[in-house]
């Protein structure tokens, strides 16, 4: 399947590597963040060598994810600019979730992916800024700011986790998507079905 010469290259190795580094960081951050988010999840601290190590590591991983995401952002920003057809696509999401289609033709990324991209970007930005404020080992914010930052961090973290749940489920729900991020290629059929405009662009076909 992977060896089919007709397959289309969807992501380069760099892109995939970047994505998965971000993903690993995110998982570490989410697990460690959740450990402090609610007492029920405190046992997750053991994954990081205990609460103190967790407290030490979390912000550094946060810095790392920010840097990695910036690289991804630079690469994918233009591809994720919203267009009219994206909004059109978004209108049909309930049908897609309910009955599986048919959906308006999409470019390399569909409206949902693009929206997710921006939402994640905003979440990460908020997390980064609020996280820096909360980083007491190096910063000494005024109480009011610290409180806003703490709430912001928790809220945007929760939202981001929610978004990622959607993201991951979308990848699982859509066979072939995971393969694109793992091996970089998708079948022509998959491309034509899910991202017809991108398929046309890649193959020179005209609709």
């Amino acid at each position, binding site marked *: 399947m992977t060896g089919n010469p007709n397959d289309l290259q969807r992501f380069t190795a760099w892109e995939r590597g970047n994505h998965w580094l971000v993903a690993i960081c995110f998982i570490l951050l989410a697990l460690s963040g959740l450990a402090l988010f609610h007492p029920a999840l405190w046992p997750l601290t053991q994954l990081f060598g205990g609460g103190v190590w967790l407290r030490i590591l979390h912000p550094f991983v946060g810095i790392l994810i920010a840097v990695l995401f910036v690289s991804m952002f630079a690469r994918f920003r233009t591809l994720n600019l919203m267009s009219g057809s994206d909004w059109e696509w978004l209108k049909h999401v309930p049908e*897609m979730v309910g009955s599986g289609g048919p959906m308006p033709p999409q470019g390399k990324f569909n409206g949902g992916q693009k929206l997710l991209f921006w939402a994640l970007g905003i979440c990460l930005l908020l997390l980064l800024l609020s996280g820096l404020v909360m980083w007491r080992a190096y910063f000494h914010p005024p109480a009011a700011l610290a409180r806003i930052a703490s709430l912001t961090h928790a809220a945007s973290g929760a939202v981001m986790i929610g978004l990622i749940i959607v993201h991951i489920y979308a990848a699982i729900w859509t066979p072939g998507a995971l393969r694109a991020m793992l091996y970089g290629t998708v079948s022509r059929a998959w491309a034509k079905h899910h991202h017809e405009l991108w398929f046309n662009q890649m193959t020179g076909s005209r609709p």
Partner: protein
Amino acid sequence: MALQSLDIVRRSATTTPSPSVRRMPEVAKLIDVSTCIGCKACQAACMEWNDVRDDVGTTGGVYDNPPDLTAASWTVMRFSERRGGGGLEWLIRKDGCMHCQEPGCLKACPAPGAIVQYANGIVDFHEENCIGCGYCITGCPFDIPRLSEKDGKVYKCTLCSDRVAVGLEPACIKACPTGALQFGTKEQMREYAAERISDLKARGFAKAGLYDPAGVGGTHVMYVLHYADQPGLYNGLAADPRIDPMVSLWKGVTKPIALAAMGAGILGCVLHYVTKGPNDVPDEAGREEGRK
């Protein structure tokens, strides 16, 4: 801590009851600002009993030294000069943990058992459980806990919980030469404060009163103030301290709700997959493309 392990009424980041069968009367430290001379004996006693030593600092144009609370200075005197109706006043306030009945630090703390509240009202940090996140600093309405740069743990006044547990008064009380610091049950302290307030009123301080702010459920460190209507005169003592709404929101019901939402999301995905199946490429389309 063995003596106290049976009277824990609140424990940070803990959702089940802590050992709390032992009951004891609520205690309080009363700081009578009107008889405090700012001698700092309490500061010295605090350093000695708790065996902590701050660095030798510098003088910044005021008598306040160390200039702020630190991980090694759990109490400091705050001096405020003020020109009032009766001439110059030098208001001197001993600052430190107020031991709130509803402690914001404890509410904010994510580490189980790093902060506890005993039945007698003392809010105590157990530094061996502290992870050094500093959330307690964010949660405190009085800006009291301080993070140590040495060990990354947070420190503050313990109200000498070790001394109180064995029937002694806190070290600062023991050292206070003028009796401006008093210690006893909260009830006794209220009665004593009432006497002091009536004396102050007789001396012309019509607004003298007790500082025991309701916003945090009352405190186990209380002040007798000449100007109870303006606590801010005493180096910015909070007029109406309470756990900040931001903190309540951050650490309140929103947490379980958010957690439930995440769980529901995952569950939703699973159900969706099970009922609807994958979003696969239709067979005809695949075949058609496959021929190319």
